[in-house]
Every structure is written in C-alpha cells, then in structure tokens.
C-alpha cells in the first residue's frame, strides 16, 4: 500500500483563486502556485500568483502563461518553491481538457489547479497532480479533529 499524495493549502488560497477567476472572466485566468514539498512527500500550497494570459487567440477558451512574468514571480517568491500552476475554465467543466494535458505533458510532476464554476455554485478550485498523460485528482487533506 502506498499512501496517497497529501496536499494542504493555506487558508486564503480558495478566495484568491476565486477572485482571479472573477477578475479574468470571461477570459481564462492563469498563474503559478507557490509552496513547498516536505520530506515526507506532503505538498503544501502557500499562495497563488496571477500571471498574464498571453495566449494569442481567443482567451475565453485557452491560456498561455507569460514566460517573463513567471520568471519574475519565481524570483520574487524565492522563499517558496514553484509547485504548480492554475488556470480557469470560465464556462467549462472542472476537468482538464485534452489540450491542458497535452500542453502540460512535457512537465509532469506539478500540481495543476483548474478553477471552474460547476452546478452554478460559483468558482471553486480543483486540484490535480499532472503526469505525462493524465491529471490525477488530488483531494485536499483536511485535519478532522473530531465529529
């Protein structure tokens, strides 16, 4: 048995991602996730940094992260590690598209978050661990103290 990948996120991450979804709407937002990976393999996301969607065509259906901005963000957030990326599906599902998976394929091993509004309940982030050919949903581990 192998313990599943454990992911925790900082308290305000959800709110920040929702805000980025709203600010970019109807375009896709995108950006980087900063945090750390512990020695025990537990991942933690401390913050999301929104970056310019520089896709050359219809930005309501696609995104590309501005490379220069990513480099600047990595240098600015140097106390953290770049642990992954996010983008939104303003009108789409919370699942990765074939293009999402294909484009991330050369970089397996990052967290990928998709912010989507499903069932009209407002935007919400969904976290995946990206491999070369699929994105594995990752539940956010919560500490349940008692019930």
């Amino acid at each position, binding site marked *: 048995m192998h*313990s599943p990948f454990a992911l925790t996120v900082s308290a305000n991450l959800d709110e920040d991602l929702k805000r980025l979804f709203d600010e970019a709407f109807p375009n896709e937002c995108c950006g980087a996730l900063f945090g750390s990976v512990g020695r025990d393999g537990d991942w933690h996301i401390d913050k999301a940094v929104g970056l310019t969607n520089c*896709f050359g065509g219809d930005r309501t259906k696609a995104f590309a992260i501005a490379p220069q901005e990513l*480099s600047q963000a990595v240098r600015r957030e140097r106390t953290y590690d770049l642990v992954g990326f996010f983008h939104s599906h303003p009108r789409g599902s919370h699942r990765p*598209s074939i293009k999402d998976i294909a484009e*991330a394929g*050369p*970089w397996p091993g990052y967290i990928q978050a998709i912010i989507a509004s499903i069932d009209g309940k407002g935007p919400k982030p969904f976290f995946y661990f990206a491999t*070369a050919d699929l*994105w*594995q949903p990752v539940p956010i581990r919560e500490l349940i103290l008692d019930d």
Partner: protein
Amino acid sequence: MIELSIPLPLRRYCNGAERVPLEPTTVGEALTQLIDKYPDIEPLLMAPDGGLRPFVNIFVSGEDIRLRDGLETDLKSTDELEILPAIAGGSEALERDRPASDGVSLVTPDECDASSDNPVLIDVRTDEEWRLGYIPNAEHIDRGFLELRIDQVVADKTRMIVCYCQSGVRSKLAAQTLINMGYGRTVSLDGGIERWKAEGRNLEVPPRVSDEMAARYQRHLTIPEVGAEGQVKLANARVAVIGMGGLGCPVSTYLAAAGVGHIGLVDDDDIDLSNLQRQFLYTPDMVGRSKAMSAEAELARFNPTISFQPLKARLDDGNIRDIFESYDLIVDCTDNFTARYLINDEAVHQGKPVVHGAVYRFDAQVSVFGLDDGPCYRCFLPEPPPPELAPSCADAGVLGVLPGVAGLLMATEAIKVIVGFGEALSGRMLCYEAKSGSVREVKFPRDPNCSVCSERQNAFAADQSEV
C-alpha cells in the same frame, strides 16, 4: 561560479538538488555541464537536434534567452540561471505531443512467468480496480502516482519491470513513462490482467472488510497506514491484557473500540470501592465482583463483534505458559515487579512483544519490550529495586487520571505493533510527568549480557534442551 535553479519535477534527476553550481561562460555550456553531471536529465531538456525542447524556457537573471542569443548567451559570474516550464492549455482539443509508446516491448503472461530476471510486476490501475483482484506479488501504484512513487517501490533502475493494467493500453503508456525516467528495462503485459485471467491464472484479492466493518471503522480505513489491510490485522489480532485495573480499563476499552478481534482480560482481583477513582469500567454496584468478569460484560456491550476471554486468575509459573500461548501480544497492566518479571521472562521465551506501562503518583511511563531485536524488561531493569524504593500504588497513591494517560499510550503502541506502522517505543521509555506537564524519553539498548534475552542465554537454553 553560476548557480542553475532546477525546477521541482526535474530534481529527481539531479539527486534532489534545487541548485547546481556550474562554471560556464555561455548558457549552452551550462547545460552541457549539467548533463555531464546528470545524464538522465538530457532527454527532458534537449531536443534530438541539440536545441532546447519546446516548453522549456531558460532565463538569465530574469531574462528569456530566446530574447538574447539563445544557447550562445554569455554569462557573467553574477548571473542567475533558471530553467522554467512553458505552460499553456485550453478547452479545445489538441492531439499533438501525446506521449508515444510505440517503443515499449510487450510480454505475454507466459513470458512473464518464465522470465529469469525476477521482474517487478507493477499494477498501474486505480484503487477500485486493484481491490477486485490483482496478479499475485504485484505492487500497486496508481498510474497517477507512478512518477512520485516508483523510486520507493523499485530502487534499482536496472531491474526489469512489467507494468500491467486492465487491458494493456494504460500500462503501455505507463511503461513509456518509466523508460523515460531511466527504468530502461520496463515492458508492458500484453492484454493486461484480462488476458492473464482468461488464460486461467490466479488472482489475489486484498483483504476485504464487511460493510458493517467498513462503516464502523471508516475513520481507520481512510488512514493509509491502517486501511482495510490494517483493520483486518486488528480483527485477527490476539492480545492479552494482564491486569484489569487502572491501566487495563483504558487499554482494553480502546483495543475493543479499535476492533482488536480477540482480547484476553486477566485479573484475579475483585472490585474495591477505592478502584473507582480510576478504573472506569466499574460502578459502585459491582464492588466485590470479579474485575475480569465485570469488565467483559461492560466491554461486550459496546463492541459485540469482539471475542473476549475473561480469566479470573493470578499469573504464576504454572499457568502463564498456557495463557500466553493463545496470544500474539501481551499488554502488561500489572502493578508490581514480581508480575512484570514473570510476564517478561515468559514473553521473551515465547518470542512475543510486551507493551509495558506503569504509574506512580504523578508520573507515567510506557515502553515496548521484546519487539524484534529490541531490549526486554530485564535489559532495562535487571533486578527489581528494593521494596522501600518501589512502593505499590496502594501505598504511594496515584492521581486517578494518570493510568488513563499511560493506558491510552499503551493501547496506541499495541495498535502500532499489530498494524505495523510508525516506530514503536522499543528501546525507548516515554515518561510523562503530570506536575510539570512534560514528556521526556529515556533510551536504552538491548543488554548483551541480559539474563533472559541475550544470545548467550538462548544458546544455553538450547544446550539444555539437547540433553
């Protein structure tokens, strides 16, 4: 010297390094030096034509080298060099850059059986599929976690690996991934587990828990370290709780709640009014009745699925051997040195671990003895202290909650030993001091001259039995 920052997913190819110091004069030289040091990283950064792969961006002090002179870009010793991914996506389907898996060799179930390479079988299906049955001796790594977990399962990159899935499609892609990661001798099982089954071969099924068990122990099942496998181990475990007083009450209660399947409750005493200050299984109307029998009646009420063996008896040389033979783990909840040595010596003799706990006024201590190659109680304390230094609980008194603290730690250790997770308190004594509210740990080794558990003692015993 220039430091090159390695992005998280590539660090596994560089011994985990976040930064690699290099002595280049151009970006191209930096990459050459990096690849010289860590050859496995080459296919991830460089295209076959010697240029950078698309999707790989390199920055010199924050500037994209594509906006400068590419791989020819000059470096100053103050420059910082960074590899970063190019990330894009979109909701429109795009079928390029799908990983090719045409280079993966296939093996048939027959070839897999006959292989003299002792291959590791890796099941890359989901948890749900795995639970319905898997190829005997296979390791399970969900495809989604393959990159993350493979080095924990297969450390040797030259080992032969056979990946399989349900029908053989996913495992081919998974095998390609492993080959790209440097596991060059990875193949895929042709036809997957379906062909394996169709050819009349056996499958193994992981231990299953009933629906009721799944509901009752849901909080255990979701902990990966316990899970269904651990819960089944608990259900099959046989634990003797010796002494049903202040320690025995919490120990037996939590072992029963946790689902330990067979619990012996051994105590000769009857309930006394002075016990109720800490022995919470007993009520005033039970005063004068047997502790073992009364505890069994109470415990059976809240977990009827467990088999309890109450025994109103005092352990002695005559009965201890038979009693211990029915159990795999002993929890020593007694309150005197005579009993502790008796328990220790017989447990060592039968090769069974003992979870130990003791309380004195405001202090509690817990340890595990005789676990694997760990020390025994006599290694820790070869002889009982003189009686004036070791007053009994009745003479010295004890804060009523202290046996609860120690008992819960003991139950925790018992469950750890049964399920096999974490590090048991073997060779370590955990000491809790209620007055200061502090915890400290005393380490002690196995005594090579121990009169009970040493090799010499074993050799001596063996010689005797030869006569």
